[in-house]
């Protein structure tokens, strides 16, 4: 094979250009840009419950039911408040009548009178969907009707759900229920329609005591996210490995 000098130079130049050209499609990113591009989403919703502040008024439950069109008198709710009364004999009395929808007005627990002098401690614990990082409910859905969005919230496709109830069984926190009117599985979604508009979830908005707060974990300037990151918070049923994203301040060991 022969190759003239002219031809050799021509081929060298063109092949160099051809191999470098595609590289120009890539842009050089600064360190921050690269980090941002690698992150899955700019938003990761999480929730902070301060059990020290909850007074058990149940206005969050009422607000949730009205906001999310959950039948008011049906025994199902997306969020609920539990009352724990630990007595001196080591017993723990727990109740949540109608999910705490009407607050806790009576000191009887399940009809049982408890002697105030016998109480060691009593407190209220609001509960809601944990929007887990590894949601068991999503794994078991046979039709792809429930899923995790890019911002970490687990949603249910009401047009796609067949109402089999696997997810209701799979959730270790019991937050899912069967919607008596829509005939599909239902649960808290952090008021997705509100948080995606920059509003607070209805329960957070209606809590007068700051016991409930919403956070964006991926925002370094979010004050609530910074509480979660810097203070001593705990989660429910950590041992299940679901990586729940509802964090609690002042959670007692009695809380299940």
């Amino acid at each position: 094979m022969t190759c003239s000098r002219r031809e050799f130079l021509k081929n060298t130049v063109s092949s160099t250009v051809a191999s470098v050209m595609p590289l120009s499609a890539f842009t050089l990113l600064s360190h921050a840009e690269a980090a941002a591009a690698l992150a899955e989403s700019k938003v990761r919703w999480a929730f902070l419950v301060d059990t020290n502040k909850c007074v058990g008024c149940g206005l969050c439950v009422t607000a949730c039911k009205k906001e999310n069109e959950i039948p008011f008198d049906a025994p199902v709710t997306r969020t609920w408040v539990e009352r724990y009364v630990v007595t001196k004999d080591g017993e723990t009395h727990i109740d949540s009548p109608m999910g705490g929808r009407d607050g806790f007005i009576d000191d009887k627990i399940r009809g049982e009178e408890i002697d105030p002098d016998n109480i060691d401690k009593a407190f209220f614990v609001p509960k809601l969907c944990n929007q887990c990082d590894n949601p068991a409910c999503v794994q078991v859905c046979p039709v792809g009707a429930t899923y995790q969005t890019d911002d970490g919230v687990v949603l249910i496709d009401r047009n796609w759900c067949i109402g089999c109830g696997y997810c209701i069984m799979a959730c270790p926190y019991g937050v899912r229920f069967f919607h008596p009117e829509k005939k599909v599985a239902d649960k808290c979604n952090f008021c997705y329609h509100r948080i995606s508009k920059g509003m607070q979830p209805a329960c957070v908005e209606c809590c007068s005591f700051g016991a409930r707060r919403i956070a964006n974990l991926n925002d370094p300037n979010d004050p609530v996210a910074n509480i979660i990151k810097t203070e001593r918070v705990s989660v429910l049923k950590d041992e299940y490995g679901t990586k729940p994203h509802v964090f609690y301040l002042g959670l007692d060991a009695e809380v299940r």
Partner: protein
Amino acid sequence: MKWHVLRPLWVAIGLVGLILVARQFLVPDDFGVHGRNFTYGYYRLSNVQEWKDFPVKFQGRESCAECHEENLAKVNASSHAPVECENCHGPSVNHPDDVELLPLNTTRELCLRCHAFLDYPNSARASLVSIEDRRHKRRYECVKCHNPHDPKEEVE
């Protein structure tokens, strides 16, 4: 192979084909893997927007302040400042466009949610002013005497 073996085979293959064809029409175009992986992100993408479009009912006190500035100023100066208007007045939804008058809740039970005495000294409830439901003006609504917009002020 014998015909009686092949015949059901063709039927089975035909059925599978039929299902595959039907699937093309029945499964929406945006159904598939969108999130991090198949396990957690196999869904119909347009459902995310459907949830975002869900109607908002609780509009927040900023929305109330647009017309009811005086009432809000009064509440904000009182010990009831942290209480959201819509907790007692009901969710405003499209008020005042659609819903002319909101369903105001003036029941004793509403006040008792925070102000019923429970003997729990180490719970947050203990820090609130409270009454013993059985002993304090049983048959009356609280608002007969106490102004919820300024609890310190007594109603004539």
